[in-house]
């Protein structure tokens, strides 16, 4: 897919394998997963639930170690959390005892660095959280919390942003709004983004490439280029091409479990329920 490009991958996953040792036996979560993410690219990873999407992302972040295989950032193997990688977690994962300002300051406190106030102010303005600095997470809506989490992740100017089903808990309108926001931020910063989601629409809207993982153990089953120009309008998203692509990816995922039946209308005999 991407091999035609002369440039080296920003993030390279090579034969990533992860085995969890649990009380009920070993569990193969990832099986020789390989994929490259180029600079400035947005790649979405979709797949049936439990396919190891999150495991893969956490391995990319350096928070999980792999059983075998390797993940390279700019050609160097990742062995632990890396300052060039920002993470946006499932749910917003804000610290409830800190107000918004203090939450965004948190990474800088850990690193004993001075926060870049101008950049943070710019980001807060970008996501529409001006003047909310004194609010506590519980005082903010789910969407606002996740915006704050995005600001926190971008505050350290990472060159790669890993997003782990960040909008899964939001309602569909807020979700679309957040997707547009991510696109805007990407157009602004051109940060390389790896985006885990179970929403195919979201994956197509955001991505340059959609990677489909197979059911457990997770392997890269398919990859799709998403060629539509940016910014992607609602009109583009309503075209037949998008519709077809959505369905193909859906079949890849659903087809894993139930091979598609012949598309003919079911007769009365077929739907008859036997005791």
């Amino acid at each position, binding site marked *: 897919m991407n091999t035609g490009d002369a440039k080296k991958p920003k993030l390279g996953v090579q034969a990533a394998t992860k085995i969890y040792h649990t009380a009920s036996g070993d569990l193969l979560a990832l099986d020789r997963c390989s994929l490259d993410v180029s600079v400035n690219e947005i790649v979405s990873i979709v797949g049936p639930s439990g396919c190891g999407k999150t495991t893969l992302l*956490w391995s990319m*972040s*350096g*928070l999980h170690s792999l059983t075998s295989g390797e993940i390279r950032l700019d050609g160097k193997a990742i062995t*632990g*959390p890396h*300052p060039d*990688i920002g*993470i946006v*977690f*499932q*749910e917003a*994962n804000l*610290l*409830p*005892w800190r107000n918004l300002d203090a939450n965004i300051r*948190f*990474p800088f*406190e*850990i*690193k004993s660095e001075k926060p870049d106030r101008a950049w943070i102010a710019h980001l807060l303005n970008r996501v529409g959280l001006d003047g909310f600095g004194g609010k*506590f*997470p*519980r005082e903010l809506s789910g969407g606002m919390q996740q915006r704050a989490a995005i600001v926190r992740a971008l505050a*350290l100017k990472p060159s790669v942003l890993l997003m782990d089903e960040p909008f899964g808990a939001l309602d569909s309108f807020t979700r679309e709004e957040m997707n547009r926001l991510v696109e805007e931020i990407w157009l602004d910063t051109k940060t390389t983004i790896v985006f885990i989601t179970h929403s195919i629409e979201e994956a197509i809207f955001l991505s340059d490439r959609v990677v489909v993982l197979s059911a457990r153990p997770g392997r890269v089953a398919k990859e799709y280029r998403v060629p539509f120009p940016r910014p992607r309008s609602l009109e583009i998203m309503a075209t037949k091409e998008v519709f077809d692509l959505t369905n193909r990816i859906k079949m890849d995922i659903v087809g894993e479990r139930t091979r598609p039946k012949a598309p003919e209308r079911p007769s009365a005999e077929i739907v008859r329920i036997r005791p």
Partner: protein
Amino acid sequence: MSGGDAIPEFSKSKSGAKAGDGHEVSLTNLSAFASGPGIKSGKEVAAILAVAVIIIGGIELALRLFHVPLYIMPPPSSIAYALFDEFPLIAPHLGYTLVELVSGFTIGAIIGLVLAAVITQFPFAEKIVAPYILLLVTTPMLALVPLLILRFGFGYTPRIIAVALAAGPMVMINAATGFRRVDSAKIALARSYGASTLQIFWKIRAPMALPMILVGLMIGAIFGLLTAVGAEMVGGGFGLGNRLTTYSSMIQMPQFFAVVLILSTLGILIYVLFFLIGKKWASWEA
């Protein structure tokens, strides 16, 4: 008297039936910090005062009407007079009790907090130690006071030790519950920025445990007060507990009840103190 006056009647009764929804006033309930005895409007304050006046006035009237002797139950007015009149004599004893309470509680709380923080880092050690902690929590430390007096005499020492022994395990068991509340996503967040174990402790675990720590400190302080007064009643010629035994042996009931009144006030002050701290630092919980 919980909840705001804006809550309609039906929802009040409904919430009253459900446990732990934040509308009950309870020492051990985390949400006590969020709702608590939330006296908000002047109307509520007036109602509480009116009830107090009616109860106290009623008792006064009944005692005088039925000529109840002073040594059985002194009327509120004579208790108030005794409190006012004897206070200069009681005040030093209040000071002694406070010294025992504050120093014993401080020692017990520090040891309890440190042990809780350390022990929760080692789940295996925690399992082994748990039964002994339970033993310390459930054993009334007052039982040890005669022994402590034999060993340390009639001074402050046995009392301070007893208070520390009563408060420490209470603080520890609650703080440990707090420290055990691991939120792996928040710890992962800190780790993703390269946080050290110590940073994770101070920036994630400790603030997350704070509401439970405050509950533990509050219960520990109140148990400490009980133990201090009890220890004073066992032996030694000073402290509010000693005043209780002295006044009752001299059948000076108004003075006796004046001391009881001081003790209840102390207890309430402890509760209010931790309630206010909790409201300031742990209200994010709700």
